[in-house]
């Protein structure tokens, strides 16, 4: 998996058409930043949309000019890779509310001329689908050949299949869940409290105050990161290995795992400069995702209008969104006699496995994408 797309450049779509949000708020105008790879064919039927996860962005593959780190799913997207850019036109947009270029809490509110901060409205998966639908029209794509996403991105894929049934032929839902469990919401709430109780948070006005609630954001990320890893994998990677050669009996870092988590949290809050308000918004969007709620809490009913064919993938050691959660999705799709395939991939990497190389995962992904490519070619 060494082939790369090479240098890629993000683009921005400015949309003046107001977006009615699920919360009731109206977003008068917004920007969506996105990247595309490969060529849209003459029939415009080879387009694949990628939906990113909580802290992800539109930079999914290839390299930005001058950067050495590729996009976050570079292992699976590129020439000859499972999502083959020689055959497919790949689109990935940054979700509204993010801090990576699309309009979000760190953007200027045109009504007030000030930074949005917590005035940025709460956004949901459905709002993201609606905004991405505007991008679809802009790109001249009648129907996506496939929409693909992992974790929160997988939820967005389901929302597409439910809300816009005739706008996609295939839905690939990886390491996702039909809704968050109480435990999932609880983890999100602790993360949000860590951010909002940081004195530097200034009720969301930290950019104007010239501060950054990085302590809170670091804690939030440490907690989140913990839920992405498995107990087994942490045991293998760190065990009880010490940072120094002997115990100090102090509150300093003693074990390697402590050092690793702190490093991950701090990198996220400082070097990667993730926006604390975006973290709040993204976790909220996750909490609110529950497509069955509108259908008497019946997930099968939620998929009643869905037409897409599905591939659902889970990972054995993922306890954040365990295989059992994916099997709920599969069951609901089967209830509607939809075409669905399901793979439960053996991995010790927990929730993070969906981003990592794995031969079974790659084999399934590649085989299914070949079906997508063949079907597009025969349209």
């Amino acid at each position, binding site marked *: 998996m060494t082939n790369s797309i090479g240098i890629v450049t993000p683009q921005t779509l400015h949309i003046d058409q107001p977006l009615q949000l699920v919360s009731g708020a109206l977003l008068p105008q917004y920007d969506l930043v996105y990247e595309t790879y490969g060529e849209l064919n003459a029939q415009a039927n080879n387009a694949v949309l990628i939906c990113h996860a909580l802290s992800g962005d539109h930079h999914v593959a290839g390299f930005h000019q001058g950067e050495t780190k590729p996009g976050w799913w570079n292992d699976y997207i590129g020439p000859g890779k499972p999502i083959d850019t020689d055959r497919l036109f790949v689109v990935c947009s940054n979700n509204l509310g993010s801090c990576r270029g699309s309009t979000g809490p760190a953007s200027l509110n045109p009504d007030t001329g000030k930074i949005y901060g917590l005035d940025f409205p709460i956004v949901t998966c459905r709002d993201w689908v609606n905004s991405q639908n505007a991008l679809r029209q802009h790109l001249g794509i009648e129907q996506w050949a496939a929409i693909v996403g992992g974790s929160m991105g997988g939820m967005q894929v389901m929302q597409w299949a439910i809300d816009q049934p005739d706008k996609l032929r295939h839905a690939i839902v990886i390491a996702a869940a039909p809704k968050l469990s109480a435990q999932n919401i609880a983890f999100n709430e602790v993360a949000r409290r860590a951010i909002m109780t940081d004195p530097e948070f200034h009720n969301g006005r930290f950019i104007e105050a010239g501060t950054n609630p990085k302590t809170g954001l670091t804690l939030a990320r440490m907690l989140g990161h913990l839920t992405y890893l498995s107990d087994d994998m942490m045991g293998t990677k760190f065990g009880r290995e010490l940072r120094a050669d002997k115990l100090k009996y102090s509150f300093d870092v003693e074990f390697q795992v402590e050092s690793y988590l702190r490093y991950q949290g701090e990198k996220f809050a400082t070097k990667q400069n993730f926006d604390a308000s975006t973290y709040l918004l993204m976790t909220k969007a996750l909490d609110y995702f529950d497509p069955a709620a509108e259908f008497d809490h019946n997930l099968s009913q939620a998929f009643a209008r869905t037409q897409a064919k599905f591939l659902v993938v889970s990972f054995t050691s993922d306890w954040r969104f365990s295989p059992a959660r994916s099997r709920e999705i599969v*069951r609901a799709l089967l209830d509607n006699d939809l075409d669905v395939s399901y793979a439960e991939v053996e991995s010790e990497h927990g929730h993070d496995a969906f981003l990592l190389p794995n031969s079974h995962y790659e084999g*399934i992904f590649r085989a299914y994408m070949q*079906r997508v490519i063949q079907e597009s070619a025969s349209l």
Partner: protein
Amino acid sequence: MSLELTPEFQLIADWIEPHSQVLDLGCGDGTLLKHLQTTRSVRGYGMEIDPQKNIQAMLKGINVIQSNLNGHDLEHYFDPHSVDYVIMTQALQVVSRPDLLLENMLTIGKQSIITFPNFGHWKMRAQLSLRGRMPETSALPYHWYDTPNIHLCTFKDFEDLCEQKNIEVIARSVVNTQHQRTLGMRLWPNLLGEVALYKVKKRASNQA
């Protein structure tokens, strides 16, 4: 992707009504389902535990659900009577409780089609009685210690189980490993038949 079919699969296809809903347990690389889709226009799903076979089935464009037939996957995914045919070829003998699985298959499927190797075939009997060793044949090519076939039975055993569970045999066919049918097999199936194909359903419940 050549679709070279065994006569066993062709016989199964003959038993399937066109446009029906089919579930293939232990579908392997999806050859049978692909054949049924092409020749009988069935809609269906394969269930298979092996990752490599899942990939192969997916390459054929089959809907394949990675599942463990020894667990509760079948009941989890499918409602009673939701499928026209639940098929299981050459897998009954490898599951942990064939009797319970058979019952489940006939709860979910209106009918079931099952094929399995016959342990009552004369070669088996001969190896055990004359050589005093566990049989190894072309139908069952494993050693006693590495065989996945942990619940082997004869045709008579299977039919006894059906009787006990109030299961009706709708059709039966017996073939050898070349999947031919001979007169001898028709006369002495339990002695000369190597592979059996059964089409079964639950008897309408009476107060027996």
